[in-house]
């Protein structure tokens, strides 16, 4: 009995790769990154300077943090269009709490919190907005696209309402109010590496751990792979999905704080259209928008591809307009290549079937 089935699972490589083209397709994100680095450094030698690399890494950090949150949502076959707006809202709320404090109208005074308190409160706000997305999507069956599109508008509008459209120009804080230190997040360095990059590394490690080792993480993959099977197996699908949107909201909030801190200012347009960057980063990292396929590591590579691409194009002297066109083309290319990979896999399976047919009596 055992022998009958033993033929099927004995696949050779852990990657499950049957041919060289397929291997190249699977490693496409790494290849793309390598090609870009070689290309840009040969045209513009300043690309590889330590100063420029830090600039690239800081840009990458924001993309990666947004992308990591988005990865959880996409793994569970959802989408979150509201992350840029949540980042903007959180930046504005943080800015208002630092510059104006929390107005307590019935007392006629404003309360100023310490920076750690403000950070925790605004991160919680982002998480809450994400959870609201998830709640409407799972309990009221609003499709993820519509729900998060609506939330994009609402959060962006709310960001302007915080200050009536004005910019908070100075987030350095006031020593008398004991609320200085916000700029540390975006400008300080620890062991000569910017704090935002440390945060990206930390978040990556935590996200890898969650996605691989925790029950929640594995259930996210199960839902993305076959939602009905997961449900019938007793997975609390709604709860897990709400969790993915909450994580995405948290990551968006973190990105918003980093951007505001780096700028030293908060305005309602912060992180506009960053949701598209986040999705692009996840897709470039090899995740499937149908869910169930993708890794945190892939998203990180995707963030580097996008960051290197936009920085490199500036150094090489490509015009702004062309940069936008090229970025769009690269994203489409990533999806086309993804489809190509599926087709190659399918045709190699068909070839196998034909080969099996040629061998009489070998059917399992």
């Amino acid at each position, binding site marked *: 009995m055992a022998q009958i089935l033993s033929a099927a699972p004995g696949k050779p490589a852990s990657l499950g790769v049957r041919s060289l083209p397929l291997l190249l397709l699977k490693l496409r994100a790494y290849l793309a990154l390598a090609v870009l680095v070689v290309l840009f450094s040969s045209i513009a030698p300043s690309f590889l300077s330590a100063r420029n690399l830090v600039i690239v890494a800081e840009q990458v950090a924001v993309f990666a943090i947004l992308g990591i949150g988005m990865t959880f949502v996409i793994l569970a076959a959802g989408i979150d269009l509201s992350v840029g707006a949540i980042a903007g809202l959180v930046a504005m709320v943080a800015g208002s709490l630092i510059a104006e404090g929390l107005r307590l109208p019935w007392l006629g005074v404003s309360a100023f919190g310490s920076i750690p308190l403000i950070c925790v409160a605004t991160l919680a706000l982002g998480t809450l907005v994400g959870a609201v997305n998830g709640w409407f999507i799972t309990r009221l069956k609003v499709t993820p696209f519509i729900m998060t599109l609506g939330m994009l508008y609402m959060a962006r509008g709310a960001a302007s309402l915080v200050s009536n459209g004005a910019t908070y120009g100075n987030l350095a804080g006031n020593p008398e109010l004991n609320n200085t230190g916000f700029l540390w997040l975006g400008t300080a360095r620890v062991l000569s590496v910017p704090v935002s990059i440390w945060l990206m590394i930390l978040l990556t490690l935590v996200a890898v751990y969650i996605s691989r080792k925790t029950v929640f993480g594995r259930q996210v*993959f199960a839902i993305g792979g076959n939602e009905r099977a997961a449900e019938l197996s007793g997975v609390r699908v709604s709860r897990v999905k709400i969790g993915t949107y909450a994580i995405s909201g948290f990551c968006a909030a973190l990105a918003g704080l980093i951007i505001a801190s780096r700028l030293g200012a908060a305005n309602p347009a912060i992180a506009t259209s960053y949701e598209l960057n986040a999705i692009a980063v996840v897709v470039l990292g090899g995740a499937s928008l149908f869910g169930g396929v993708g890794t945190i590591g892939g998203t990180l590579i995707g963030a580097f591809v996008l960051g290197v691409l936009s920085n490199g194009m500036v150094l090489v002297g490509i015009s702004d307009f062309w940069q936008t066109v090229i970025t769009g083309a690269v994203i489409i290319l990533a999806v086309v290549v993804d489809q190509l990979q599926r087709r190659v896999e399918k045709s190699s399976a068909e070839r196998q079937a034909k080969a099996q047919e040629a061998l009489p009596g070998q059917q399992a």
Partner: protein
Amino acid sequence: MSRVANSSAASPPTLAMHARRITKVYQGTTALKGVDFNVVHGQVNVLIGENGAGKSTLMKVLAGIEQPTSGQLFRGEEQLHLSNPRQAMALGIGIVHQELNLCPNLSVAENLFVGKELRNRWGMVRHAEQRRRARATLARMGQAVDVDALVQDLSIGTRQIIEIAKVLVSDVQVLILDEPTSSLSDAEVKVLFSLIGDLKRQGVSIIYISHRLEELIEIGDTFTVLRDGHLVGTGVKGSVTIAWLVERMIGSSLAAQLREGAATPAGPPVLEVRDLTVANERGGLLLDKLSFSVGRGEVVAFYGLMGAGRTELFETLIGLRKAIGGHIALTGVALPLRQTIAERIQAGIALVPEDRQKLGLVTGASVRDNLLLANLKRYARGHGLAPRPMEADVARMIEQLHIKTSNAGVAISSLSGGNQQKVVVGKNLLTEPHILLLDEPTRGIDIKARRELFEVLDGLAKAGLTILYASSDLTEILGGADRVLVMCQGRITANLPREQLSEASLVAWSQVTRQEVSARGGTTLAQQEPL
């Protein structure tokens, strides 16, 4: 209505659980009508009935997936209220679903523990322990499956094994197996049966659903037959025969023919298929060198068990699946294998798919819009769609197919299942096909509507349309076709003209054992020339 074949048991058997007067109403149809069901402790409780008889619905009620409209579930004296599968699982009720319910992107070990992951005190998944237990469970089942393999890389048969293992990794008291053998090889079935024997000895109660009658007689201890949502018979091992089961399953409706067979022999061949071979995504063969031909005005039925390849054959003919080898000729003209669906429709093939709601209809639209959907190009003029020919065609179809609707503008969802199906047929007729393919045309349709549909098909065949339909419903096969092609494992195993039809021959031909088929033409059965 309920008849007891034999009540020889002197003392009443211990029940693991039982259901009383279960009724389940879905939108528009009643799947179960006051059904009682006993699960005898430590025995194999067989549940049998034709497609749509309500077996799967009853099992979903027992497993907490569906909630009954009325009726109660009991375990001993205690009444159960199962509002989700988790609660049933906690009570030790496990179900192996008919359709595969695995996550293809996860490993075997992970699939076994989805929803019941082993966790340590920090909420981490204990991967090593899961893999160890997965290996132990599979070893107990006599299977050497790599627990780290991704499910998407496994054959369908192996996936079915995984599906069963998924229930067995936790302690089950009641194990529901819904068509567990539909994609297993003979050797795998033997392993499953010996496993069932082991479980019985351990005091596990098993509910077993299958279409394979011989298998049921072999394994079953008690038998319950459902027909159209009613309980129509119960029996115990020893007193139950295949003939008894078939009679109960089909009932009196067997006598009533759905249509007269064609008096005149079929016209010249319209469709010729030779050596058609289709592979699935994983490299297995769905259709294995299939050959047949059908004449003008002929009504041919394809009979077979689940997974025999009937749906796949129709999907290949309409161009949804691409064949990797063979020839298809329509009215003497060879069709390229890589043709698209649009080209096949253009060539004169039309398909009424199995899943009417999902694939056949635009459920939000009107009867008129659904009828015209496949054919809009024909009404396109320079200034838009021409209303007059559209109305004429809609009226003609409603008239010709006896579609019961107050007017063509009403929503399709307000029609009965039978009339909805007629709309799907009408939509396809407007493309003026040579061949009409119908996949399970009367699924979820009552007897009366079924007869009406076949009257319509009969009229179309007399007018020269060639009709091919697939069904696993014996009544429909026996009463509706001029000729039956029996399929098994992607091959045609018998070609039976109307005179030679009997339920016994159909059942026998559809159950050609896998070993004989897979021996690649080594037996008389597999070598029999279909035409």
